[in-house]
């Protein structure tokens, strides 16, 4: 080894020595981990303080393309649509000046925008921007994931299906999409059939405006966070992919004044790591790591918030595959499952047991309506197995449950194996795969039994049925096909009598569950969040759809006592 190599080695030591000295020099950093605590004095009008939250890197910044929960949470921080859902899930005017004027046949919506709307760069925000937003979601080349919720807008489906058409044809179809700017502040939208939930859809990201002064054409690439313009309460001021984003108040936000000077998002994939960062005060609010829930309950009794999320998970049966093609077998499997014990043993009370498909609150029910049919009852389960021709499990064909690989799922699988062996005398085979393999099997209807369910896109019972349970429904992968169910959904879909509509969806749920046709619900998930006491406006504004922190949809209402 030459002298120069030894010199290099020595310099390595020097670097290490410097690092060691730096450690010894102690703490001179700016940790804001004084947990203010409990002061309820209202903050002044001027925004003040910084809130740092744990978040997940978004996949795409384009609201007309994305369908990822973490993306959507970002998007409502920085953009707003014509309407915004309040805490009761009622659409309230955001960019729109009041409720839409709806024609007598319910098919034409005329919406006036608030006066002097501006993008964050000071350019006027006009009706044309909302037209472009909806056209982008319907554009076949953009291939927006959520086009299907705009299927009722005249011409949207035709445009979306024209991927192979030539440019001229595409331009023609784009112009034929039923959304028009009458003038700079008046928007007209035509839909195919009167749809009571349409104003709700005008609150969601696929209908957010697109800055036409930034996008030359409908398929122009969507600018990144620092190049884009915003009409929401906040806008990004700094961004490093996979690391952090800083949001500051948008000077041209039309809504009520915002409470904080800065919101910092730290991108971290692992909830356990985020919880450590919460302990050290590096983040002020974050999701709680569910496997650690027991510990967190004692460690942060006043900072841990558990509340219902709109997600239902159950046993999903491919009703065309033996043995779960028999209603008695599906019922027996459901009745041989002790959900209450499962919640304690497997999930440590991070979810709540259910036999309802639609979360009861969403459906005007109390919960427990289907316990008699699907709830834990070993005697009934045995009886059903006998009826199906498998007394004490004799002659029962092989049954495989496909699950995504995770510690909790393995526990769940073993729990079901033990329960069904005990009560029904059958062997359950587990196939543990990665998430894409499971989804691919599910999407191809190549399975007997999976655990899965639904996460609500928008707050209405229809979102729990359309496409999912009709014969040939676009995402009906359990292949359920029941005439009465089809009829109920069909009648409910464009029913303008809200009470009747909701009743029809309750009827549909009954038909769906009475023979566990495709699903036997097991649990509704809970959101579990940690919030430091110096933060106000998060917990007060929690919604079932929160992804990062409570009150995700109302960033403008967050405040902190920490200056």
């Amino acid at each position, binding site marked *: 080894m030459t002298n120069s190599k030894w010199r290099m080695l020595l310099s390595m030591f020097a670097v290490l020595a410097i690092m060691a000295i730096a450690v010894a020099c102690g703490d001179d950093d700016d940790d804001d981990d004084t947990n203010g605590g409990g002061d309820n004095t209202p903050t002044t009008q001027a925004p003040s303080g910084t809130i740092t939250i744990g978040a997940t890197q978004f996949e795409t910044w384009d609201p007309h393309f994305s369908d990822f929960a973490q993306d959507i949470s970002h998007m409502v921080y920085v953009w707003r649509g014509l309407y915004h859902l309040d805490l009761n899930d009622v659409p309230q005017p955001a960019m729109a000046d009041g409720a839409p004027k709806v024609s007598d046949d319910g098919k034409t919506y005329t919406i006036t925008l608030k006066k002097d709307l501006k993008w964050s760069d000071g350019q006027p925000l006009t009706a044309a921007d909302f037209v472009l937003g909806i056209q982008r979601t319907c554009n076949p080349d953009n291939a927006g*994931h959520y086009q299907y919720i705009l299927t009722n807008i005249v011409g949207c489906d035709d445009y979306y299906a024209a991927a192979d058409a030539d440019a001229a044809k595409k331009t023609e179809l784009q112009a034929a999409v039923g959304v028009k700017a009458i003038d700079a502040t008046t928007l007209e939208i035509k839909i195919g059939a009167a749809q009571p939930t349409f104003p709700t859809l005008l609150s969601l990201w696929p209908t957010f405006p697109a800055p036409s002064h930034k996008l030359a054409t409908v398929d122009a690439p969507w600018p990144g966070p620092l190049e884009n313009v915003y009409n929401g309460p906040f806008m990004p001021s700094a961004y490093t992919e996979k690391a952090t984003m800083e949001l500051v108040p948008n000077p041209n936000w039309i809504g009520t004044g915002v409470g904080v000077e800065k919101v910092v998002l730290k991108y971290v994939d692992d909830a356990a790591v985020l919880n450590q960062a919460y302990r050290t005060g590096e983040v002020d609010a974050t999701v709680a790591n569910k496997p650690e829930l027991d510990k967190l309950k004692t460690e942060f009794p006043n900072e841990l918030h558990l509340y219902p999320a709109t997600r239902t998970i159950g046993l999903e049966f491919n009703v065309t595959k033996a043995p779960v093609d028999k209603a008695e077998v599906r019922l027996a499997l459901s009745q041989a499952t002790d959900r209450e014990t499962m919640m304690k043993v497997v999930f440590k009370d991070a979810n709540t047991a259910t036999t309802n498909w639609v979360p009861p609150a969403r459906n005007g029910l109390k919960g427990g309506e289907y316990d008699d049919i699907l709830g834990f009852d070993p005697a009934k389960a045995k009886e059903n197995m006998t009826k199906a021709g498998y007394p004490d499990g004799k002659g029962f064909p092989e049954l495989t449950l496909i699950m995504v690989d995770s510690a909790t799922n393995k526990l769940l699988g073993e729990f079901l194996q033990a329960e069904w062996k005990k009560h029904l005398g059958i062997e359950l085979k587990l196939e543990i795969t990665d998430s894409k*393999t499971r989804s691919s099997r599910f999407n191809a209807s190549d399975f007997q039994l999976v655990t899965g369910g639904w996460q609500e896109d928008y707050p209405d019972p229809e979102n729990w049925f359309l496409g999912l349970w009709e014969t040939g429904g676009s995402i009906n992968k359990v292949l359920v096909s029941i005439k009465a169910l089809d009829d109920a959904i069909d009648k409910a879909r464009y029913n303008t009598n809200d009470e009747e509509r909701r009743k029809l969806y309750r009827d549909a749920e009954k038909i769906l569950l009475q023979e566990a046709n495709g699903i036997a619900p097991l649990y509704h998930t809970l959101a579990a969040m940690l919030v430091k006491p110096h933060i106000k406006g998060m917990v007060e504004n929690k919604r079932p759809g929160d992804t990062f922190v409570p009150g995700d949809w109302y960033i403008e209402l967050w405040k902190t006592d920490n200056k």
Partner: protein
Amino acid sequence: MLAYAIRRVLAIIPLLFAIATITFFLMHSVEGGPFDEDKPLPPATRANLERRYGLDDPLPVQYVTYLKNLASFDFGISIANNRDISDIIKERMRISVQLGIAAFLFATAFGLTLGIVSSLNQNGLGDYFGVFVATAGAAMPSIVLAPLLTIVFAVELGWFKVLSTNYGFTGWLQGDFSNWKQVILPTIGLGFLPMAFIARITRASMLEVLRQDYVRTARAKGLKELNVVIRHAAKNALIPVLTVLGPIFAGLITGSLVIERFFAIPGLGGEFVRSVIIRDYGLIMGVTVFFAVIIAFMNLVVDLLYGLADPRIRY
């Protein structure tokens, strides 16, 4: 030697072609695609998405297109976030390289010191300490070490940060050391295992060399012990160590899933694993080919370094 180096560089081309081909078909043979989401997509949406990313073409067509693009260093667009894959690799790699180099320096400095100190005190207190650290390091995978470091030094003692989202030394060059609390734990976490490995090899190699006749001769002719150890023993003992440093370096700079995950560092290791999980075909290909290039070059560099370290080796 130049001719040898050129030959080796040229040999990388067919190697890359083979790796790209195998990866391409292996990747597509795995069940599940990028658009198999938890919530099934309606068929019309899926069709448009596949078209947007060129996945509607038959596989051989996709393969030929890919190779054509690769030949012009075009890695394509990531399905996950619509960004240019070479930009993603460049950004992530910049962080992984800094982490890797820091961990490498840590591992080499402490590994060599421990190994040499152990060998000089064979069966003494220093040796027991060295062997203990080396064994502990080898026995403790980073999946255990990383959370342990976090719990002890960040959560309990509060000396460092849990999140190292701003890992890097580029600011240090301008005199900005504000992220020092974020860089130390991940560096130790990543460097500990290779440090233990280097310490063991150095110790074994030193022990062997110290028993050689020429070392005895050096001592017999009255040289100072420090001179004997450094000039005569260590110089020869380090050849086997040099052999492992190349692959260790390549391994360290290409990112570590575990360390990146536990310290929230946006490096290439996590990106690569994620690309496989979500079947981001372009990114899987891009990172694999990129890794292959790095490893091939590192092996070449090590082979060339042998020649410098050991004059008996000729090309």
